[in-house]
């Protein structure tokens, strides 16, 4: 297992805390192997019980803390990194599943059924999220942290350096945009389903 260099990690973390997003990406790459292993292991173990992604990410971070690779006070920042790892893993997972049953060509989508949704296509979400990242990277990041990372508003606020109420507003707007974008996709690709 790649053993992240803790001095580098700390410096990168410091830089990230000061707003350097490149430092965040470097840190992610530094820890990714580990994060992915932890997350994937949890995902496998999870099959028959009901940990949410939030739990999984938390657990991954707890393990890192236990390995003394990060400090407890940096928890929310590492939750953010784990959220990103989780996003990649879940998307890969969903894509793999989709390719397995390609011949069905069935895409389940966000539809309003009795006021609540059916399940939907993760691949489609990922596409929409990438697009949102181009239009408004801050909002895309919040979605990543909240939806994939299961982080609280408070934790997200800490990571992105904004107030909780701002984060909350941004999340609401981003969520509306994504839901709309995914519905649009359905309309466009109606011949698909």
């Amino acid at each position, binding site marked *: 297992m790649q053993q992240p260099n803790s001095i580098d990690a700390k410096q990168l973390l410091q830089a990230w805390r000061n707003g350097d997003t490149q430092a965040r990406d470097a840190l992610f790459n530094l820890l990714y192997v580990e994060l992915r292993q932890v997350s994937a292991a949890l995902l496998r173990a999870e099959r028959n019980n009901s940990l949410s992604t939030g739990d999984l990410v938390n657990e991954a971070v707890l393990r890192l803390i236990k390995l003394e690779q990060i400090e407890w006070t940096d928890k929310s920042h590492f939750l953010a990194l784990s959220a990103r790892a989780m996003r990649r893993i879940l998307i890969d997972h969903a894509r793999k599943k989709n390719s397995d049953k390609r011949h069905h060509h069935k895409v389940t989508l966000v539809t309003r059924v009795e006021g*609540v949704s059916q399940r939907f296509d993760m691949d489609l979400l990922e596409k929409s999220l990438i697009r949102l990242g181009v239009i408004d990277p801050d909002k895309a990041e919040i979605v990543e942290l909240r939806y994939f990372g299961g982080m609280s508003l408070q934790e997200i606020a800490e990571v992105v350096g904004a107030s909780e109420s701002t984060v909350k507003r941004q999340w609401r707007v981003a969520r509306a945009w994504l839901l709309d974008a995914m519905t649009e996709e359905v309309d466009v690709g109606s011949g698909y389903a």
Partner: protein
Amino acid sequence: MSEADTLEQQALKLLTDALEQPSTDREDWVRKQAGDNAALVSRVLALLEADGSVNAALRTGGAKRDAGDAPPPDRAGPYKITGMIGRGGMGAVYKGERDSGDFKQIAAIKIIWPGVLSDSLIARFERERQILADLSHPNIARLFDGGALPDGSPYFVMEYVDGEPITEWADTAGLGLDDRLWLFRDICTAVRHAHQNLIVHRDITPSNVLVTKSGTVKLIDFGIAKPHSDELAEVSEAPPSAKSLASLSFTPGYGAPERAQGAPANTLSDIYSLGKLLEALVQNHPPNADVAAIIARAAADNMEERYASVDALIEDLTNLRTGYPVEARAGGTLYKFRKFLSRNRLAMTLGTLALVGLIGALGVTLHEYNRAEQARHYAAARFEQARGLSKVFITDVYDAIEHIPGSLEARENLAGIVKDYVDELAADPNAPDDVLMDVAVQNTRLSDLYGGLGVANFGDTETSFALLLKAEEALNRLLERSPDDVHAIDEMAWVKRLKANQEMSYQLDMDAARRTNEEGLALVERGMTLPGADETKLFFRLWNSRTDRVKILMYQNDYETAIAEARRYRDELAASEYEEEPRRRLSRLAYFARLEGEGLSDTQHWEDSIPPLEYAVKAYDEILAENTAGYYYNLQKMAALSPLVMSYLKAGKGDEALQTSKEAVRIAETLREGDPKDAASRAFVATQLEMDGRVESEFGDRDAALSAIMEALDIRRRVIADFPDTAGHRRDLAGTLKTAAIVYQSLGLHSRACDALHESMGELTALNTAKALTDVEREVWVPEVSQQIENYSCLSE
């Protein structure tokens, strides 16, 4: 950046601002802001619509669930699954239709993933299920049924509520502050109703509070919303730190802070969640100072500062609406309840924390009951409710908390409340059979709490006995009316047994005990011939009464008969064909073996007593190997070890005596740890230490002997200080002093030996004057002590 992207950015910006506007004005506002940019208007309106669509997608941490692909089961019990409603942390909720029988019913079916619920949570649910099913309130979604799928996943069938989370509904409907408060009040009345039925919701959040299209608010998922962290199953493949996981995944914002530390849910944690819910509900309507005060009070971090009951919260909401001063703002706390809390220090003990909630709930109900009483015309429904509640408390709740270490004090306070209530019930001269049965059962339970033999108790034997007499009286009334009611006979046999035991052990009235025991035996024998006897515990009562008979014979100093009876019963048991759990039979065999050995040891047949006692100890070890924490079996084992130590000692088996005596002390201390204030367990420790001192002085270490005997005396004196009116404790001290004298003398501490003997004689004399000595004690002990005083030449100095 493309033109399309720019448009999207503008749309996002405008949407952000639009959401700050009142929901009804948004469309107009957007059109006004966007001017003639039709593309922008259409984009923002589409986004607004997406925002308004209540949607389970893209929820916090929802990624994994959305990516999951567990297929729904076809059916759950009599319900056919017709669609999915949503997924949650513990499982998924489906829509189901009941298609069997004449009627069609649509329901929400919550299926829990296998392994999520621990056995203890399932057990709790089983206990609460009937109460949950009986929870009938217009604002509570009914629980219809529950069960397990073929794969073992538990499921719950609930009323299907087609609604939106309350906060979203209120926004959509454009409710003002007043209407929001009123809607919130409805939820509070629902929670109050549940608390009065001893049900705590555990997870009040906007997503569990739905509003239907017709505007009715409904609480869903009562009592099953969330497992408590230590009820989470430990799945072997799951991450090791399930506990840390549970606290991290704690519903952010709505769960009371003490729960994050692992405290179980109670009514006060529900009140906290209600406070947080109100906060969320009014967040876009800057609350006035009164509303803010109510929120702060309900959602206070410190439990003691919260409203003591949902009633108090509702009262404040009413104050607010009617213009009265709001209690929360006065800064006043509910002094009485707080005092109650500090008096009981319940809040300090996590194990009893749930009880705070129960007391709160119980207090509310009894308060209402009393108020109704004052009015002299309480509704029959209320009567039934209070009766049911009291029954639940004294059976289910009692059972649930009885074995929580340290719960004695909490139980004592709760018992007082129920005791008053049961007296009220019994006072009715026209009470029907089932009410009389309730009175008997509850008085019997209460009697156990106050001074039950062999169970952790408050050491108040007089109240305990008085309660048994009340139970006996109620059953006499019942049996006069219905002499062949086997259940009443069954209960009466039990009461007789407890009564005989108390007469024997506390009142030392052997004649009365013998009489009561014989009455009980006759009743059992008659009962066993009646139809329906199979459904009762009369078989067990028979054996219980027989063990009592042997004990009473021993106390009456008729050892010969006692030993013979014990042997006869052992043989009969060994040959019995009654089908029962092997462990039970083993335990009963062990019990008679112990009595036989005890009788032989008491009559100084040391060598003869060893085999039956060793048999008993071995049998209890076998039983305890399966259940190491069993209070009862530890107690029984200790009772067998005690005479065994004496027999080894007298038979000159020093190593065995030392080893056995240490084990007996260890068990006694374990029993005491469960409840350090329990008089009985403290006395056990003293008794075993006393023996240990004796054994050490003869075969072991001088210092160990001294320290054991002095600790034994110290415990005896402290117990007497705590319970000065129980003669038995003084008797015990007299006995320990006598042993202490032997130990001191053998260690060459002559004057200390004499002091101990004089003190022992003083106690015995006082007890004799108070007629608190048994025949054995008067005829054997007193002369023994006199003889020792003479032997040690204590009088000549």
